[in-house]
């Protein structure tokens, strides 16, 4: 009963947040609504006892992906009016997506009538069951090749993104950190004997002090 109340509460927040993503005029507000949507989905996942995936959803999407998203959205000066203008143009595509989503939902309920009930949820798990371990065991044995392939794919994407944005412009004077670190005092500071022998000059009597050398 309590779980059901929680489920409906989180679902309501999730739907409101999802609406907020597409309805708010300010792109930063949209991004923040998306963060809230991820968070509530994680809470919903916790209700069906998949704590590993729920926490990873928060860690990866909320903690990293959306931070970068916000970073970009805040920097870009998005012209809201022009973005709005595309509404009619993209309405057809939107309609197709909406129909597809609706069809999937109907499919789930239709399957229940056929006897395959996907809405019941998983049976309660034993106390010592750790889905972190279970996931790890499957991921690194049965699905190890797809897993490694996905990793390589991500690496290729990183390398590609860097090569695309890396420009070798002539005339730049970047700092060579190794050179900066390797500098010793002797390279920069030279101590000289005071040439003013009369003893009345400004440098008199200071030749041994570091300041006397700095001026030379």
């Amino acid at each position, binding site marked *: 009963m309590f779980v059901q109340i929680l489920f409906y509460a989180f679902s309501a927040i999730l739907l409101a947040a999802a609406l907020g993503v597409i309805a708010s005029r300010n792109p930063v507000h949209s991004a*923040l609504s998306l963060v809230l949507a991820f968070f509530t989905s994680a809470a919903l996942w916790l209700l069906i006892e998949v704590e590993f995936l729920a926490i990873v959803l928060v860690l990866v999407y*909320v*903690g990293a992906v959306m931070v970068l998203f916000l*970073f970009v959205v805040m920097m870009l000066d998005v012209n809201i009016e022009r973005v709005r203008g595309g509404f009619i143009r993209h309405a057809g595509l939107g309609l197709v997506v909406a129909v597809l989503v609706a069809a999937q939902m109907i499919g789930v309920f239709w399957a229940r009538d056929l006897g395959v009930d996907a809405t019941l949820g998983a049976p309660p798990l034993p106390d010592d069951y750790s889905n*972190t371990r279970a996931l790890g065991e499957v991921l690194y044995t049965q699905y190890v090749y797809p897993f490694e392939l996905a990793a390589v794919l991500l690496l290729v994407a990183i390398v590609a993104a860097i090569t695309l944005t890396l420009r070798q412009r002539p005339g730049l004077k970047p700092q060579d950190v190794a050179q900066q670190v390797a500098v010793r005092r002797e390279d920069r500071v030279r101590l000289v004997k005071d040439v003013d022998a009369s003893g009345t000059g400004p440098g008199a009597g200071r030749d041994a002090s570091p300041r006397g050398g700095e001026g030379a």
Partner: protein
Amino acid sequence: MTALLDLWASLPDVVRSTAWILIVTVAVILSVAFTTLWERKVIGWMQLRKGPNRVGSIFGLLPGIFQPFADVIKLLLKEVVLPSAANKWLFRVAPAITLIPAFAAWAVMPLDPNLVIADIDAGLLYVLSLTSVGVYGVILAGWATNSKYAFLGAMRSAAQIVAYEIAMGFALVGVVMAAGTLNLGDIVRAQEGGLGSWFFIWLFPLFVVYLISGVAETNRAPFDVAEGESEIVAGFHVEYSGIAFALFFLAEYANMILISGLTAVFFLGGWLSPFEGVLAADNPLAQPGFHWLFLKLFFFLTCFMWYRATFPRYRYDQIMRLGWKVLIPVTLVWIAVAAVMVHFRVGPWSAN
């Protein structure tokens, strides 16, 4: 006393865990208050000053002991100025967003062999995800203020935290490999067997990386470019005043205490005694307990102040270079080394 203990044991679980949550929260808030005082004292001593010594003294002892309370009362009485160009709602919410994760992470902290509020299997991931959520407060504060300085601070902070989170996560991968679990209590238990089996010896490079990333994650000197008072005034909280400013302060110190505690748990055996195995098992010094965690936590907390008193602030591009080009490669190499050690059962892994 036994009657009280019986009464405590007879309470339902919900009541008991709520009571523990309250106790831990109040303890963290009080620790934050005295950490601010301790920081000013320590830095004062390091710079040959006295630090706060006016407010309150008990029979001439501990002068300045009530300074934190005086500060809080002062900040509470001050007006919270709301800039007219600010995004009102986000401006108010941002301090709370930084504060909540800093406190919520304490739920999985193993305080004692038998005491942890939420003993969850993926505790380490929980801590990582919460600390990564804290950055939203900084970014939103900077953006909602609608000021160039605040926005620059927010941008710097976002890039810095994302970069150091990776180093931090990799360092913890080594810990997880060594302990074979994500549960913080079990990570401590995996370090049982005296000083020699604490992870900071076997995972020393990861320990150093974690410590450095911890300082960077909390936006503390020498990584405090998000504040950078010499170039961007006070960064993301430039327009915050009164208690709204105090909340940022509270979050920063709560995060410092948390990171110190986590360093103790991951690398220095949490509540384990350093004399375990050296002294006889019935010696009180060899017993595990909260006091050991407290001592270790206090040591790292004082280190945070030490860094602040001694190091000049990093330049922004140097921070990025250190994070991406030094810390991450170091962790990658040592994860490989740790894998070899685990596989060939070297060191503390020889037993199992």
